[in-house]
């Protein structure tokens, strides 16, 4: 097993792995974004976040569950707060990317003396239990400036779908390659490379 070591700054504080509050969170499935808006507007639903088709919301409003069921929603599912909330942090010290991946912790950026990782509270706790050192981010990570040359618009769409922040697409010669420029985190660059794109970091 390959272990790499990154050296952290010892002054960083420990990443806190507790929910931001203890309000109960439930989830329901909706058809589209408009439905979320109507739930907020008509029922005062307090959305924690939505990843369509699932909406996570605070379930401590009196009578809310009954109203949701009366409107036709399936019984709202109580959620474990440890799986609802996601945290980002620095992973310092020894690491193995495959192992942290198996624990459900995802990479965002590789820095000289740490990794920027994220995961839900449960996954991050599992990583901490395995001995990984997780610290609070003391700066705001930024994506890298990249350039990718692609053959056609389908490939540009793939890059967009990986959430690269594209700011220019050019085809200098008709029939020639397109030059896509944007910014991406290391994890996105990894995905681009896994799709056989040649990525140039600027």
């Amino acid at each position, binding site marked *: 097993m390959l272990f790499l070591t990154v050296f952290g700054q010892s002054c960083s504080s420990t990443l806190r792995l507790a929910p931001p509050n203890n309000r109960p969170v439930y989830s329901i499935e909706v058809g589209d974004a*408009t439905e979320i808006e109507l739930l907020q507007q008509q029922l005062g639903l307090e959305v924690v976040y939505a990843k*369509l088709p699932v909406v996570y919301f605070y379930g401590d409003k009196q009578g809310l569950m009954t109203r949701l069921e009366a409107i036709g*929603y399936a019984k709202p599912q109580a959620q474990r707060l440890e799986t609802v909330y996601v945290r980002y942090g620095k992973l310092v010290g020894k690491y193995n990317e495959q192992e942290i991946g198996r624990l459900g912790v995802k990479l*965002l950026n590789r820095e000289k003396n740490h990794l920027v990782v994220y995961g839900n509270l449960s996954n991050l706790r599992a990583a901490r239990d395995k001995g990984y050192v997780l610290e609070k981010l003391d700066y705001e990570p930024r994506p890298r400036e990249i350039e990718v040359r692609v053959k056609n618009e389908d490939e540009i769409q793939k890059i*967009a779908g990986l*959430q690269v922040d594209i700011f220019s697409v050019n085809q200098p010669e008709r029939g020639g390659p397109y030059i896509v420029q944007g910014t991406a985190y290391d994890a996105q660059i990894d995905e681009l490379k896994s799709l056989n794109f040649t990525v140039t970091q600027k």
Partner: protein
Amino acid sequence: MKKSFILSLLFGAWTTSQAQILTFTSFRTPAQTNADLTLLHTTYPTLTQLLSIGTSVNGNAIRVLKISSTPAVNDPTKGDVVFVADHHAREWISVEMALYLADQLLARYATDPQLQADMNRLQIWIIPVVNPDGYQYSAAAPANRYWRKNRRNNGGGFFGVDLNRNWGYQWGTSAGDPNGSPNPPDDTYFGTAPFSEPETAALRTFLNGLGNFKSFVSYHSYSELYLRPWAHTVTDPPGEQTLRSIAQRNINRIATVHGHTYTENISYTATGEATDFIWNEKRVAAFTPELRPAGSLGLAGFSPAPTEILPCCEENYPAAAALIHDAARSGVWLRDYVGDTGAEPSTGYPWESPDIWTVPAVLNQNATVDLHIRVNNNTGATVNNVTVEAYYTDPRITLEFPSLTSVLIGTAVVSVPPGGTDVVMPWTTPVGTNIWGERHWCVGGVVKHENDMPLTTVVSRTSNVACHNFNTTTIVESGLLWVAATNFLSVAAELELSFNRGDLPSDWVIEFPETSQLQKETALQPSTIRKSKLLETKGVVLEPGQTVKVPIKVHFQKAHGAPVDVRVKGDLLPLVGGKRKPVGNGYSFQVTTK
């Protein structure tokens, strides 16, 4: 003589600054932008009002400069044209463009009679900074210069939501690998919910409050593109022909100034985008110009040389002015009803255009008739190169032209002398019946000109589009009139039917069927049923593209010798959040009795 000099002679009015009070030689700071907005207002107090449409995450005002000949009055008879900039913090040149536009309009008002006439009919709203927190942050330190999002604290050390991924239509969808992310670190993060951000929510509320919304432009940078809906899919939107005509006209206007030809394709799709929401929900022409520079310039493309600012603004001004002119009253136009004066939106019955008729008047299947379209011209001079398009569709409430279901009859390019002219084109009526077994159709006419484009496809909201519903029905006591309504919107909608009692003989009674009876015929998605319950709808609910056939019972005590006009109005109320604005049309029967 150099080409550029000839162009400047031809288009001198576009490129020559006239008494402008702002300069465009460097990017201004957020404080300067605020000061210059105030300066525009204090310089032109009788033409402007400086307002706030709401506040950002950090409590900064989202300021709007209202330009109007009566700025203190909200006048619903005037059209509303909206220009916004800087959804994305780093796109500073878009802020300059918005300020330049305001400066030019105000400076030219006194000296350009045509522009003055246009502006007197409009309320022009300019919001130079949709994202004031991000704009301030991007200017606060060199390391922040290329910040894109707002400054929402997402927790865990990450900030920002991409405001142009946070609008409600197609928010958060993942079909087709669109650009728009659920992850807070991403620069395309779409937020926790549609309109989760106070900036987009404030803008939506502001737009919902406009009485006569005509057009919307959202300036971005960079790449020199002129984009139109849809952003979320490569499929054409309803009314694509109309949007394309306007975009291509505007691209031509831009190119004539400094020779920069903007292109139309961004090559990827994105969700929760502003113009998609506006075209879908409002059917108001909405565009996204991506300003200078062009090329593969990396992040530096957001910081072009300051010498680029003025030419960028100069070349985009004519496109903006053209939209403003389109939004003012039409020069070439079609009447929606007898007595129509061209006011927009129409009152009366806008599906009975007297400017559309056939010879012979009675339509039989598979027969070629002469379709006449009377194009009016109130400019006082001959207007050349007017494009006249004719479409037909099954007659139904809730029509727009062109639509995804309308069929092109023909196109003509004509000169229209003062007063107007008749355009005649052959039309072979379809074989067979329409969707509910009858042989009549609705014909829509669209007139377009370089200086006069329709900014919507909805008949009642523009004088450039009209329709005539060809239909004659004979009924006996307790007879039925059949009408149909189609939901041409891209979201589920509730149908409201109505008629004007005062139009009918006193002994006539009209009965609409119960909603429950009609609703049985239409299959709804579970999500639509839930939305309907949330909104406590009363009318029949239709999915996008769905049609309902409505039997209307007519009772009368005695037959009338003369035909009686029975007019049924239909409005679609979309099942959406915020203020639900009806879009509608109607249906007329000329009823003979026996």
